[in-house]
């Protein structure tokens, strides 16, 4: 059944065996249960045999429990951690290609400073900016620059870690 009520975005981190085909099994669980993956980031952990998949998905009231149980059944999934909430800090990196005109350049430069963005590269009339922060902040950055003419963006999607020492290698 495709669920209709989408309440909030949920961030989940999944520790999996670092092997071919595992991502497709994980993604399959979301697809089969009618959840769309909004963002996805995969990287090795401190243990190269284990990868960490961090993803965000639209959720509904059953989401965390149902998806967690389903993911737990996968042989290659070691652990599922719900990263939503204040105990975790989230960051995202975004590249924004924005057009620059004589009339807008000073305002854009001011915004770059204010949002702590970096100009990664520039060509006549076009800057590539780098923004990092909580996904809410990167969304705000994007929202601000959009009226100036954003031609291309790419976002890593949220990654997240414990604020406190997890007391084990992860």
């Amino acid at each position, binding site marked *: 059944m495709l669920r209709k009520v989408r309440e909030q975005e949920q961030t989940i981190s999944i520790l999996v065996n670092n092997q071919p085909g595992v991502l497709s*099994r994980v993604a399959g669980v979301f697809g089969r249960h009618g959840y769309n993956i909004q963002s996805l980031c995969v990287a090795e952990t401190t243990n190269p045999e284990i990868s960490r998949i961090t993803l965000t998905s639209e959720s509904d009231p059953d989401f965390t429990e149902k998806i967690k149980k389903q993911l737990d059944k996968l042989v290659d999934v070691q652990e599922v951690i719900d990263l939503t909430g204040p105990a975790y800090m989230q960051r995202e990196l975004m590249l924004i290609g924005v057009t620059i005109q004589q009339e807008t350049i000073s305002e854009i430069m001011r915004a770059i400073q204010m949002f702590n963005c970096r100009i990664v590269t520039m060509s006549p009339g076009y800057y590539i900016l780098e923004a990092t922060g909580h996904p809410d902040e990167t969304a705000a950055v994007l929202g601000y620059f959009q009226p100036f003419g954003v031609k291309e963006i790419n976002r890593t999607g949220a990654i997240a870690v414990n604020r406190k020492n997890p007391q084990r290698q992860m």
Partner: protein
Amino acid sequence: METIGADIVIQVLREEGIDVIFGYPGAATLPIHDRLMNSPIRHYLMRHEQAAAHAADGYARATGKVGVCLATSGPGATNLVTGIATAFMDSTPMVALTAQVSTSLLGQDAFQETDIIGITMPITKHSYQVHNVKNLASTMRQAFELAKTGRPGPVLVDLPRDILASKCELAGERGASTLKMNGKRAETPEQIEKIARALNQSERPLIIIGGGVKLANAFHLIRQLIEKANIPFVTTMMGIGSVDAANGYNLGLIGTHGNELANRIVHQCDFILAVGTRFSDRSTALIEEFAPLANIAQIDIDPTSIGKSIKINLPYVGDIRDALTALLPLVNEKEKSEWLQRIEAEREAAEKKIANGSGCGQAGDFIRKVQEAMPGETTVVADVGLNQIWTVRTWKARDPRSLITSGGMGTMGFSLPASIGAKVGCPERAVVAITGDGGFYMNIQELATVGYYNLPIKIVVINNGHLGMIRQIQDLFYNDRFNTIDLGSKVDFVAVARGFGIPGSRIVVDENPQSGIEAMVNTEGPYLLEAVVDPNNYVFPIIPPGRSNIEMIHDRLD
């Protein structure tokens, strides 16, 4: 002879106690088929890979052991898919071995290459493709462990040809398991105490027995519980036979095609202990109105089965045997209560509504006669369609593994190949395959397998010349606009059977059923009995789509 990967495959099969596999060779499987000649494992050559999967499934359901099927790459592997999905839906422990093109050709669209791992991902517990012969033994061992552990199910191992053919040493001792144990988390004793308390305090308790009771080998425990506390029980289709159907506490099958009494009592009870059932839509009918008065406790080894479709007040995740062993001493012995008297009154009322006891008409009577004529130790394998409902509602399953059918997947064509597996697994038991004409056509080639191995399977084809269950739906809910359901009456099934080397006869059930039944029972070896029934012989009562358990209809005009 030098040891090769295929020898490791056979080594692990032997370790696992596998003495039978069902398969079909292809160029890529040949290393295995070649080395099977040196092993005591019997390989049954089916006439279609789908049938190999169903036979392995039937074998596993009849014996409780892991069923193994083997197919080649490409079309061999894809032909297994329906059989694997059937096993997955009914939680049958199965290992499906598929050969694959050599690792150097993977991804190149080589001859008979297919991504069977990708294809079977949603219908297996897990699947493995072996890329190094060093991992072959551990992968095979893990596949068997996984197929049996927790909620059982099919596991697929894809074996590239070069891995099977590569020289290697036989595997060493089995190491410690590295498998993450699913569903093995133990519940606290308090949870069982809570369930016991709720059961003891209830006035109108009911047990729902699902297929998990068979999978967990918990028949004795569930019967002890029923008899100690005088609790009536209903079963899902997969739960039939877990307790002798003749047990006085049996109220029958629940769900859309279930018994009226069973469905009515579910609606009236105040406490349900659901054991090894996932509350499928076929069992519950309209979920919002299922068991409106009941406090529900659910015992299941699969955490995702708990509360998947229905709210559970008292969940218990774990092995059914552990749970019932803990529960039994905490349950009070109860005298026959008002509740049981009320059920008896309901039973009488329900029986009056259906002129013919089972609601299965002439076909039901006929199946009852077949059972009476067969030995007590008979396993029946029902196909899908009206014949399935007639069988599960009429056949009195005495032993836990004596009634086999495709419940969750509803796979037509299941019964003939599955009966081959059941017969091979339990040669001491008589086996009857009951099928309709529609399902029979779907794996009719397996008559050749039955004939070749001279397997004494009694094949009963209930022939109404139609896809009967679909006909009933068109009759009742599509204003009797019949379309695409007429199978005709031109095929002479007895001649077909004879062509495959199997004797048979044809009867019309309203005229002379006994002569045919006697001929079947008295003929040694396989036999085909074609039993002609009226296409207007349906199943009643049934629950129309989108209605609740008590909104049953009893005839065409209801």
